[in-house]
């Protein structure tokens, strides 16, 4: 990952960035993660095994990939509440298309490829729609994506007739290595997650587009005067997020093989939380992909540890997660 300029968040007044103090605060989420891992190991020796670590990383992949896209949107000063519903609708459409194509196309590999293409195309198209409504329609991103949150899920429910859309068995078997397979001992989803994060980091910090995203989030007016094509950059940002949702769905479908009205519920909160816990400010302007990554892993480690132990009432799981999120955010509070 290239060194992240975007990470240089406004330092606390009167403190120059790059001092040990600034660096320590920048490391907030990492410290949180390390502490949490120590706690996990103390609570259950099996926490620190390679298998468990890979399990956690694999399941972080969905949210993590979406969070990378969300990071761009938030840095640009936007928000997308619809990602969970969008993932569900994409999963549903993808399965319907694959089941349909299986009749027409002989090669099952081709069918899966068609399904994947559909997922990515839909993601980009939904992102484009968001971007257009927000820039050309001049509607608050919160409203646009709150609206599509309902719309996407309703259409999935409609297509599924209230039930679930399920992938044909033969296809499911063919497709499943995409989630369950490994390469050099590392599960495929972890590879993809890593690639997406790396690409995200590069785009954010090493391309003109990434710079524009930060500039727009920092002050849209100034960016416009500086000849940045604000609308185009914003639209691309939502499309990028849509693509990430599409990629995440590619991994989701082979895992659970179906889509239903509850698929992806509250993923938006998780993805946004990963970004913000990772040290990006909700108001935009600056943020980091590494932080987002750490944030996403941190959130799944919390629930992993809760699964591995039974020290507190099952009813209170959500409370523990809440406390940990607040504490981690507190550790890096100076960065605001």
């Amino acid at each position: 990952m290239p060194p992240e300029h975007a990470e240089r968040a406004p330092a606390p007044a009167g403190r120059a960035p790059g001092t040990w103090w600034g660096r320590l605060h920048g490391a907030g989420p990492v410290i949180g993660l390390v502490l949490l891992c120590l706690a996990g190991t103390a609570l259950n020796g099996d926490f620190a095994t390679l298998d468990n670590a890979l399990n956690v990383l694999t399941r972080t992949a969905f949210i993590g990939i979406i969070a990378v896209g969300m990071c761009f949107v938030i840095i640009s000063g936007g928000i997308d509440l619809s990602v969970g519903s969008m993932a569900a609708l994409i999963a549903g459409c993808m399965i319907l298309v694959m089941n349909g194509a299986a009749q027409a196309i002989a090669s099952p590999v081709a069918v899966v490829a068609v399904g994947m293409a559909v997922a990515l195309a839909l993601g980009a198209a939904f992102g484009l729609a968001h971007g257009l409504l927000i820039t050309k329609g001049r509607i608050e991103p919160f409203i646009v994506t709150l609206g599509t949150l309902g719309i996407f899920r309703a259409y999935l429910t409609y297509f599924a007739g209230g039930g679930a859309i399920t992938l044909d068995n033969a296809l499911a078997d063919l497709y499943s290595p995409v989630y369950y397979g490994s390469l050099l001992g590392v599960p495929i989803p972890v590879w993809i997650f890593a690639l997406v994060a790396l690409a995200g980091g590069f785009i954010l910090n090493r391309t003109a587009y990434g710079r524009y995203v930060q500039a727009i989030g920092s002050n849209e007016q100034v960016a416009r005067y500086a000849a940045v094509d604000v609308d185009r950059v914003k639209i691309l940002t939502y499309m990028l997020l849509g693509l990430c949702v599409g990629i995440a769905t590619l991994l989701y479908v082979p895992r659970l093989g179906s889509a239903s009205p509850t698929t992806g519920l509250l993923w938006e909160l998780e993805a946004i939380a990963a970004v913000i816990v990772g040290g990006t400010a909700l108001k935009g302007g600056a943020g980091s992909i590494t932080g987002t990554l750490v944030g996403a892993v941190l959130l799944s480690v919390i629930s992993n540890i809760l699964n591995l132990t039974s020290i507190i009432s099952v009813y209170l799981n959500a409370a523990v997660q809440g406390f940990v999120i607040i504490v981690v955010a507190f550790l890096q509070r100076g960065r605001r």
Partner: protein
Amino acid sequence: MSLAVEFREITKAFGPVQVLHGVSFELAPGRVVGLLGENGAGKSTLMKILAGYEQPSGGSLLVDGQPRRFASSREAQAQGIVLIHQEFNLAEDLTIAQNIFLGHEKKCGWRLDEAAMERETARVLAEVGLRASPGTRVRQLIVAEKQLVEIAKALARNARLLVMDEPTATLTPGETERLFALVARLKAGGTTIVYISHKLDEVERITDEVVVMRDGRFVARQPTAALTRHQMANLMVGRELSDLFPPRQPPLPDAPVLLRVRDLSVPGWAQGASFEVRAGEIFGFAGLVGAGRTELFEGLLGLRPCRAAGVEIAGHASLPKSPREAADQGLTYLSEDRKGKGLHVQLPLAENLTLMNLRAYGGRWLQPAAEQAALRQAVAAFGIRTGDLGCRASQLSGGNQQKLALAKVLQPQPRVVVLDEPTRGVDVGAKRDIYFLIQRLAAQGRAVVVISSELPELIGLCHRVAVMRAGRIAATLAQEQLNEEELIGHATGTR
């Protein structure tokens, strides 16, 4: 009732950067003191300490002989010390009246006394000469009007010591005159005034004495009458300054027209503007505040709805729809509103500098090393003073921010460049550098448009000047016709 203030060995450091190195001097009560110094000399910082916005790192502050330490601006204001900021401090979503009384609302019981506040606002607005209703939202004001609101805000506080940090940087002669009358009235009423400005003619006219600072240190304190402008400038920069303006080289007779505008109208602001600027020409725009110069060019850049019979930029015959298109055609624009439109104050210097020209810093991937090199070059070329190349733009002094903004719009090597108040808040030394730079830009065959409220600047620099009045170009004057009476005459419509 006048206040006497004494600084004793005041020091101030921002992190590792030492900004004030033990400044000591006195402000005599009831006088108008000019505070001079190069960009980054520490004038604003010292005044913020006086007015309670910053805490000194060391030294002491005496007010009427008593040692004081103001933890907040409220405490300073309780003593009658009021600062008009160099950078605006207005909440854009609130109205003028709401801003003027923010934190000092008049109440009757629980309720705000809106009527009384609006009355009082109307009074101070009249005093500074701003014709706007107290209920106007600040967002809707232009830069100069915001400056007047800042001044009105200070008036509403009944100051015993008033610090004005470059109040006229964005004002045109009319408003400036009114401000001077105001200063005289306040002085007669016993108010002590500190006047920070880089416009030495103003300092000469209205101050009783001047204090000069350099590099965070006190340099001199003299009665104004004992100094010439030239001497003031030399004290500020610490060396002998020669001619302010470069010799003019007329554009070649066959130089192509790089900017041609026919009948451009920005509804509500400007009507039927036509002009041409040739390669190598410096073309000025004069006018009173509100004449519509800024808006004319914002329209040309696609930032405001507008129409035109014809626009041609460096050979491209089309009206740009956005600054992006304009830049692609070879035209860039420096905004007069540094903080709101010019710079990303929260971003580092390099990222500000290269934003308009990222293509030059890497094909597919950006090259941070190249950006840093460009920053070092710009810092040297424009004389940007900063302790740390990695700092954010907000950590630069006002004048140094201006230099950075100027460097930024020149990055894409535009064929046509429009500079709106290019020397706003810049010290004499740097001003001279900028004039020479503009001259060089022209000599390289670019077309340069300079919008300025400083008449001497237009007179000393331009080949031709268009004067705007109420949204129309009232006259276009050739170099030999340029003098203050002529310009003011056309601007006010008395000629």
